[in-house]
Each structure stands twice: as C-alpha cells, then as structure tokens.
C-alpha cells in the first residue's frame, strides 16, 4: 500500500506534499519577481539562498497565532470556506497530466471537470464574505460574484476551441493531439482569452477586485486570523500552479518536447514560464474597476471568444488534415 504508485502520486508528486511546497515556493517567487520589477530586493534573510525559506517562516509564525472567530459571524461557514478552498486547489492539480501516466485522475471529461471545480471558488468567497459579518469582506464577496459573471463564459468558450481542435476532453489526449503542432498557433486568440480570463479567475492583479488591498483592505480575507489567513491565501497560489499547468497542457503541448530530457521537465518548465508571465502581469498593470471588467468581459472578451469559435470551426471543417 505504502509503495504503490497511486499512493505515492497522491502523497508525494503531483499530490499533497508537492502542492504544499510548490505553493509556498510560489509565494516566495512572486515576492521576488515583484521586487525585481520594482527595483527592490524582496525577502532576503530567511536562508542563504535569497530568502527562499521566507514563506515557511511565515507559515510557522501564522500557525502560532491565536485563532478566533469575529463576533456575530457564522463560525461554521467562516472556517469552512477557506479550508474547502484548499481542497479544491488540490483537486485541480489532481486532474493535470504531468507526464505520460503521472496523473492522479485520468478522467474522460478532465477539462470540463477542471473548469467546473474552479467555478465553485467564487461561491466560497461569497460565503466567506457573508459569514464574517463585516463590511469589507462582504463587499469583496459580492465583487467576486459579479466578477465571475464577467469571465466565466469567455473562459469556457476559449476552452471549447481546444476541444474542437482535439476532438476530446481528456487532458492527456489533448496533449497527444498536439504532437504535430502546439495549439498556441491555431488557437492564438483562444490562448489570449484563456490567459486573461484565468487571471481574472485567480483574482490576481489586474483583476484582484475581491481582495483589493488598497480599496477594501484584502476584501474577503480581512477578518481571517492566524492559520486561517494562511488557508485563505494558499488556494490562490495553488490555483496559479494548476492554471499555469492547464495552460501549458491546452496550448503549449504539455509534456511534449525534445526527448533528451524527461517529459516531466518540459511540463514543469512550461508551467514555470506561464507562472512568471502571470506574475509579471501583476507587477505591471493597474487594477481595473468592476464596471470596466464587467463591460470588457461581456462585450470584448465574449465577442473575441465567439470569433475564435468561428475561426476554429473553419479550421477544423475546412482543413480536416490539420
């Protein structure tokens, strides 16, 4: 049992332990990248190698803080929302094929399952904001709800382009369909829409309206103490990891690459490139307003997504040999 491949996948890689370590390392990487862009240094002291242990030090510090629930709040949902968010993040990574055979759940509807699981996260944010009985979290939760209506349909429609090209919803088979050419070329518009909407889905800058720290004080996370704040922050990094991996699976050929290095290396390299790209977006763009985001999502992004479906239809039906 303890040495069976499935158990090792669940516990070590790509399962729980690696998700926790990669999430913490992404927190460090984000601070470093943002610092470099802003001509700062970033975390420095927590280890000899550029403060790489800073997030683990933060984890220990936050774990020993007192846990309490604000008065008049709904304690069950207040604690349930961020912890369920952590489980959802792990569920996302479980669907990603990191190499042939190295995948926890190889299900036939992998891509819609991923998008369906991610759809739950704004609901959890609204629940967290409602249960805290405080103004800033409630406004943040409502913003998450409205923001979801702006990006959800373009996100699904940009994924539909890949399904039309590949003729399958299984993520491993989507990778294998790209042996003759990555989908980033015929699906360039779809890849752009998917990147923008997934950044909005992860609630990162420039779309971090639910936790805009300069407007509503971290929004829905404002009331969380100690380790619960960690549980509220953690899913953001796990979602960044999972979405970057999904982007490389859908558009960049996943684990395909020259054979002198293992497939896992190519998969992680592409994932890391997308992660750094999304982090650079964070440090270069200002935050949009809610009405700007709603209008852009419903007019520009939705129109582009429908145009992308038209282009894909012409490509698939007109040139069946592609």
């Amino acid at each position, binding site marked *: 049992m303890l040495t069976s491949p*499935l158990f090792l996948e*669940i516990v070590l890689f790509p*399962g*729980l332990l690696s998700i926790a370590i990669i999430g913490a390392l992404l927190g460090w990487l984000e601070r470093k990248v943002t610092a470099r862009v802003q001509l700062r240094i970033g975390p420095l002291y927590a280890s000899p190698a550029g403060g790489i242990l800073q997030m683990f030090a933060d984890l220990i510090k936050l*774990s*020993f*803080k*007192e*846990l*309490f*629930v*604000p*008065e008049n*709040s709904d304690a069950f949902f207040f604690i349930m929302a961020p*912890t369920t968010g952590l*489980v959802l993040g*792990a*569920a996302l990574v479980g669907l990603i094929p990191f190499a042939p055979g190295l995948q*926890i*759940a*190889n*299900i036939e509807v992998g891509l819609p399952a991923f998008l369906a699981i991610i759809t739950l996260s704004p609901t959890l944010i609204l629940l967290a904001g*409602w249960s*805290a*009985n*405080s*103004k*800033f979290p*409630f*406004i943040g939760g*409502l*913003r998450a709800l*409205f923001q*979801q*209506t*702006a990006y*959800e*349909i373009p996100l*699904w*429609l940009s994924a*539909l*382009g890949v*399904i*039309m090209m590949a*003729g399958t*919803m299984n993520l491993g088979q989507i990778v294998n369909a790209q042996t003759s050419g990555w989908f980033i070329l015929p699906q360039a518009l779809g890849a752009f829409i998917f990147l923008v909407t997934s950044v909005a889905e992860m609630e990162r800058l420039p779309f971090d309206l639910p936790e805009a720290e300069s407007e509503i004080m971290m929004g829905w996370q*404002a*009331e969380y103490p*100690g*380790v619960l704040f960690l*549980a509220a922050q953690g899913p953001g990094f796990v979602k960044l990891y999972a979405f970057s991996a999904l982007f490389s699976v859908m558009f960049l050929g996943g684990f395909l690459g020259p054979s002198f290095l293992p497939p896992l290396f190519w998969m992680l390299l592409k994932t890391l490139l997308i992660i750094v790209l999304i982090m650079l977006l964070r440090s270069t763009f200002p935050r949009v307003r*809610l*009405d700007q985001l*709603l*209008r852009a999502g*419903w007019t520009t992004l939705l129109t582009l997504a*429908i145009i992308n*479906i038209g282009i894909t*239809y012409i490509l698939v*039906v007109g040139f069946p040999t592609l």
Partner: protein
Amino acid sequence: MVAQGIPEIGSYIAFLFVSTVALVIILRLFVSPRDPRPTPEKKKPFESGQIAAGPGRTRFIIQYYPYLLMFVVYDVIAMFLFAWGLNLRALGASGSVPVLVFIVVLLIPLGYALHLANHRENW
C-alpha cells in the same frame, strides 16, 4: 472508455478524501493557542481602526444585476456547445448547421441584452 474511467474516479475520490483528512489533522494541530485575558474589542469587525457602525452585511451592489440575469441564461447555453464541439470532426459542415443557426439566433437577444445592461441608468 467508460469502464476504464471508473477506477480512476475511485482514485480521485481517494485523493480528495486524503487531502481533506490531512487538512483536518493540520488544522487540529494548530487550533491550540488561547488568549488568557480576552477583551471584547478583539472580536469586533475590522473597520480600519474605527468602531464598527451599523450592520456588517450592508446593501447589495445592485447596479450590475442585468449581467447576473444574462449569466444565468447564457452560462447554461454555453454548455450545450461542448457536446457539439467534441463531435465536430464527425459531424462535419452539414451536421453543424442546426448548431450554427442556434448560435446566431441566440446572439441577437444577447446583443440587445448587452445594449440594455451597458446603459445602467435604465436600471
């Protein structure tokens, strides 16, 4: 293909179960420190240092309500396209005509709804 998928779903459920158990254990370990002298101010809602005024659950943002209505309709409709997109190579151009008519018919009310929703003063 379906029979192949069943044990995979079982392993996925096992994965979710293990992750939940690990989470509960970790949380249980850390739910220990207690304040020896609790003060009532500590549990007040945070309002940037001010004393909290009024109810915590304030008014809903209502001016974007038309977008919510459109979302309820068109999010479900977008799902129908997935069944078509999956079988596009088998259906070909002739099999796709009903779906294309379906899309065009739906785009006209979508455009009108967007026109109304983008003029928020109507609401």
